[in-house]
């Protein structure tokens, strides 16, 4: 390896390590929060269906279906992110989930509804408001950052020898 290329290459490696560190932090944080939020809702289907109904967006059947499926979807997405499997697909799902949550919160705020958020199940007393909106927006940004910083090859096991100089 020519000595002139050694310095740029080491900086590139540092940047690469920083990026992979960021990806690790993002997917653990995003996966953790989704898993936790889904897990809390798993055993309270009835109450969660009522919490969704409070948003007045879907018919009764839609609220009930969502109350059953959404917690499992959050748990599955969270686990995929935590364990680093199908990271971009899980990041995409996380982003879509947070877009949906943001939409529901924003329309509730716009309609002036003073209701519980239900973000972490019905045990939490968090209410729909700017705080919940900012919280979801931050997680949406995290999902986008994860998508942006995860190359397609990150889902593949590292191929030894291919990227060694």
């Amino acid at each position, binding site marked *: 390896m020519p000595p002139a*290329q050694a310095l740029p290459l080491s900086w590139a490696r540092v940047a690469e390590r920083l990026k992979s560190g960021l990806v690790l932090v993002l997917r653990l944080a995003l996966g953790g929060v989704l898993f936790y939020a889904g897990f809390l809702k798993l055993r309270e289907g*009835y109450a969660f269906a*009522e919490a969704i109904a409070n948003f007045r967006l879907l018919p*009764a*059947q839609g609220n*009930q*279906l969502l109350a*059953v499926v959404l917690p499992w*979807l959050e748990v599955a997405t969270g686990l995929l992110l935590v364990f680093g499997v199908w990271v971009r697909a899980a990041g*995409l799902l996380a982003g879509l989930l947070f877009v949906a949550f943001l939409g529901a919160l924003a329309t509730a705020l716009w309609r002036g509804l003073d209701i519980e958020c239900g973000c972490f199940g019905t045990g939490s007393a968090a209410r729909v408001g700017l705080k919940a909106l900012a919280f979801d927006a931050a997680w949406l940004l995290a999902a986008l950052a994860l998508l942006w910083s995860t190359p397609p090859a990150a889902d593949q096991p590292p191929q030894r020898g291919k990227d060694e100089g």
Partner: protein
Amino acid sequence: MDTTPHTATPGGIALSAGGPSAKAAAAGASWRMECLRAVAVVVSSAALALATNHFAAYPVPLLAADGPGALPERAERIGVAEFKNLLASQKAVLLLDVRRDEAFNAGHAAASLHAPADDFAAQYERLNLDAKLQTAEQVVLICESDDCLSADRVAKLLKDLRYPNVRVFYGGWSAYVEAGFQVEVEGARDTAGEKEPVIQNPKSKIQNSMPGGTR
């Protein structure tokens, strides 16, 4: 994001294989794959969720128009002025707070009973509400806000149990505090705002109407 396959040279400089069209094609294929994976996660999660719900001890009904996801019928409201008149009358009033524990502990109406909506059946037994409801001439439910459907659900439940005189405090807890009614915080009494507490005289009537006393 660059999704083009790279080839590493011995010098460590990656060379892209193919031109811009090849890059775009590779990126498109990559995103198609990610979308397919995302759909697979959604489908398998939904299948698992439906199977788990089917075999659960208390499954959530999925096609019930009046199930837990249904909007309850809006219960009759009672406004501040009318509530003051009610308290000034000789009627036995039962004030039932259906908010959560944390909200109730942070502040509640003097002489109110706490029966959280999410655990109402258990509270109904624990507080012996049946006897109290029979002696009350008017039941007033307090929830967080006027959009709080819990009070409407409890009102419907009580009406189904044949207690017709059930109304919900209009505006919920925030309106109750703003109106200057007497507020208690975890046993310590506090008066909200500058106004005189208006519940003081009827309080004894409320207490008399409830054999078990108040919290």
